[in-house]
């Protein structure tokens, strides 16, 4: 522990405070002090907070959000838990594909998945016009249908937590139970379930948090079906006239309140249900080959078609169709939308700059944000894991909070903070500048950057760092020569994942976009709103393909570089890092 580490801890805490906590606080303060950020301070009393129960729209938004959150969390957890149990028990061909699909769903922006579903299920959609399944429309466009879609989109969060918990073998308890005559179901109910309950709880909470803060689904739905939720009502409160910043503040306040409650329940649940089964006898689960592997594989593939194939396949199909409702026929086939997108056609009345310009802007912002967030995440994880900084507890709180703050809330908080007049002379009037978009993207990516790296750091023994410190290594030397080589692969994946998500970040883009600044998700969303489905989907496919290619390319290049560095290191006899990685 040295002064440098303390200072570093202070700096990252301050940054997280400014990036995440301050906007949140601004939103809540604005609910009771509405003029605060416009230069006229007046206490508004608390009655505005209770107005939510009088205004139908806000009340319905609250109700819808809670219902959607509870439903999707429950359905998603059951789904994720089931798949995770199968996945960790058996070894079969399609399992790998399941993992890939889970990651794709995690990274894919929810509004694009939702648009795919809308195009599939709406009255003009593929289900109706091509397959003749008119029941799909009435099934999807009602609350339980939306819960179904959300569950299918958000289950990966539950899946990953449960899979992680199932990594350890608890068969000695199961064997004991079986010996005493318990049937498999009883074993699952009395042994496996209680042991993995914290994981289910954590998974449920994560899905709930992600669903209730989701902006993509209501945004995509808005064209065809009224389903106001809190994030969408917050967005519309500030995007229409008369503008209601105070109400956006109040609705955000409720959203934050629900999220805080959920997290509190999660912590209590985890504390209460702590069972010490990870002792020296713990061994990893070895997966068995199932008897009917093909059956599992077919089942998995069918599921993948449902959760990923329908939305993405629909978007891909629609991008080649002249008219959505006209069905899949040769005379309805066209490349026009791709030519429009690639030619930068400005036929749509909102687009002033080419969509390619938007793609370039979005990619640049996402790349910068990914790098900054990973550096911050690295330092935060380092301070949390290896130092005794006094700021650790607040740092911990900030990273947890950041996990739960929806983009919409962050966006409005940023407007409050960064659009104040006194900031202009000191050059910090960031509202309306691309740098604010970068900040928002960093704030959005930090929770993932920190989580991923905390996970990797946890496997590192502090004795390595102590040994280095004894030899006189400075903090930066320790980071550079010990930690970085070990965690670099995870780091790379985290960078790429946060890059992939921020390219399509619709919520902050729609709230913070500078004037005359085109961003890819906005172009897609607007085209969708104007019912130009072909253009929207073609832009999605092209944008998505470029992002995927970039991710694969960067990964390939860096793996090559890492290999070269390792070879160099070996020659110099300096192979701490590589040796450890094999451990």
């Amino acid at each position, binding site marked *: 522990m040295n002064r440098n580490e303390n200072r570093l801890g202070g700096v990252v805490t301050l940054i997280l405070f400014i990036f995440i906590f301050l906007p949140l606080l601004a939103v809540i303060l604005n609910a009771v002090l509405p003029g605060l950020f416009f230069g006229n301070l007046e206490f508004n009393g608390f009655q505005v907070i209770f107005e939510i129960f009088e205004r139908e729209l806000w009340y319905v938004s609250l109700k819808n959000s809670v219902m959607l959150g509870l439903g999707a969390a429950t359905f998603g957890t059951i789904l994720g838990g089931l798949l995770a149990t199968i996945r960790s028990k058996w070894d079969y061909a399609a399992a790998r594909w399941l993992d890939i699909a889970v990651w794709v769903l995690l990274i894919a922006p929810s509004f694009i998945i939702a648009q795919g579903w809308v195009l599939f299920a709406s009255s*003009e959609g593929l289900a109706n016009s091509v397959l003749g399944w008119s029941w799909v429309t009435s099934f999807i466009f009602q609350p339980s249908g939306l819960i179904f879609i959300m569950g299918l989109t958000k289950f990966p969060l539950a899946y990953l937590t449960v899979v992680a918990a199932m990594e350890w073998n608890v068969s000695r308890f199961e064997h004991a139970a079986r010996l005493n005559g318990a049937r498999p179901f009883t074993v699952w109910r009395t042994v496996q379930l209680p042991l993995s309950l914290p994981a289910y709880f954590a998974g449920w909470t994560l899905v709930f948090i992600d669903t209730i803060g989701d902006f993509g689904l209501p945004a995509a739905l808005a064209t065809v079906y009224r389903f106001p939720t809190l994030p969408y009502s917050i967005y519309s409160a500030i995007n229409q006239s008369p503008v209601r910043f105070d109400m956006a503040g109040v609705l955000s306040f409720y959203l934050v309140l629900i999220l805080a409650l959920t997290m509190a329940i999660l912590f209590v649940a985890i504390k209460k249900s702590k069972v010490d089964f990870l002792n020296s006898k713990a061994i990893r689960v070895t997966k068995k080959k199932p008897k009917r592997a093909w059956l599992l594989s077919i089942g998995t593939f069918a599921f993948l078609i449902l959760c990923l194939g329908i939305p993405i396949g629909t978007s891909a199909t629609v991008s080649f169709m002249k008219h959505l409702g006209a069905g899949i026929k040769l005379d309805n086939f066209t490349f026009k939308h791709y030519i429009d997108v690639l030619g930068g056609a400005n036929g749509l009345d909102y687009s002033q700059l080419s969509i390619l310009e938007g793609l370039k802007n979005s990619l640049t912002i996402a790349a910068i944000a990914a790098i900054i967030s990973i550096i911050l995440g690295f330092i935060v994880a380092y301070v949390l894991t290896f130092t005794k900084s006094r700021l650790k507890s*607040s740092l911990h709180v900030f990273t947890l909070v950041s996990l739960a703050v929806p983009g919409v809330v962050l966006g409005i908080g940023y407007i409050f903070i960064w659009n*104040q007049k006194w900031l202009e002379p000191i050059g910090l009037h960031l509202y309306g500048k691309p740098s604010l978009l970068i900040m928002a993207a960093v704030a959005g990516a930090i929770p993932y950057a920190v989580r991923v790296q905390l996970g990797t750091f946890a496997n590192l023994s502090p004795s390595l760092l102590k040994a280095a410190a004894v030899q006189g290594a400075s903090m930066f030397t320790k980071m550079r020569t010990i930690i970085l080589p070990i965690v670099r692969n995870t780091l790379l994946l985290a960078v790429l994942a946060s890059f992939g998500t921020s390219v399509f970040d619709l919520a902050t883009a729609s709230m913070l976009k500078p004037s005359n600044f085109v961003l890819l998700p906005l172009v897609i969303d607007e085209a969708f*709103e104007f019912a130009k489905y072909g253009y929207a989907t073609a832009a999605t496919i092209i944008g998505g393909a470029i992002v995927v290619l970039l991710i694969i390319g960067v990964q390939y290049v860096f793996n090559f570089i890492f290999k070269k560095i390792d070879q160099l290191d070996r020659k110099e006899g300096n192979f701490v890092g590589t040796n450890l990685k094999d451990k």
Partner: protein
Amino acid sequence: MLRSKTILFICLFSFLVLTACSLNEDEKSTASDESSKEQNAEGEKGTGEPIKLYGNDFIEEISPKFQGDTGYEIEGVHYGGGEALAQIEAEQGNPQWDVIMMDGHGSIRNLADRGFLLTDWKPENIDLLSEEGTELVPEDNAYTPIGIHASAVIVYNTDILTEETAPKTWDEFFAYDGPVGHADPAVAAPAYPLVSSLFYKWGVEEGKERYLKRFEDGFNIYPKNGPVTSAVINGEIHVAALQEHNAYQAELDGENVGVIWPEEGAPGSVRVVAINKDSKNLEAAKVFVEYMLEPDTQNYLTSLEDDSSSFFTPLSKGTEMRKEREQNGTFLLPPAEWAAEHETEIKTWFADQNVN
């Protein structure tokens, strides 16, 4: 313990930072009033700073043309109507815009009533306005009308209805037996002029009753006029109250729609230009208003056949409208003051009814 103390400290600290900021701003704002006056004094001579134009139609076309014709630099920013107003509100601590040009004189009146706009300046070209246009000029000259279009005409699906069976008046539209729809007044710029015209025509209470009845009988609200057009084309709704731009464009595109301009009048939406009172280049902003009143400018806008926004009635003398639209159409138009006064009430009421 340490943890809760830290959190408490952080909350306190940030509260102090925030309030300090806002108090600071109070002091500053008086100071900046003076400095902005000085700036305005300079602005009278022309500060040379490019002006920023916010608006919902013609922004791409008019900005380069204005710059080319007058030499004043201008940057056009294109928003949806509601978005432009929201942007102006969001920027009220620190306005970035100089001129706004959009339809919906009620909403602009609202801005004027709240002190956002330059008032009591009379453009020299105001005399170029036609009689119809002159009637729309407000007493305080807070904004200048340049055009008017139908925020809604009656559009029907020709596969379902014929010219004879389709509703021809707003009463018939509200009494129609089958699904009808229009755009959301909270989101689409032309939809508030539509709703407010009908509310004014019938009175607020009767207006609410008629809408409630309509919601019961089948009434679809879409965020913007684009999806309304698709819905009437594919038969999801049989009849729509659709902005004339979309209506005539769909007819020209050969879609299965018929357009009826009700004899009693179509709800009108007035396009106006207004100047930010804190503009950093008032001279250029005023030149823009004068420029928009020129018959040549308005004729240029109606000649833009690729842009469906060119379906409107220009308000200066010696101008021509597009031939494809109803040439003798009349408008239902509430007074700007009335529309501004009832804006919050009507929009809030509407949003609360429209929640499934």
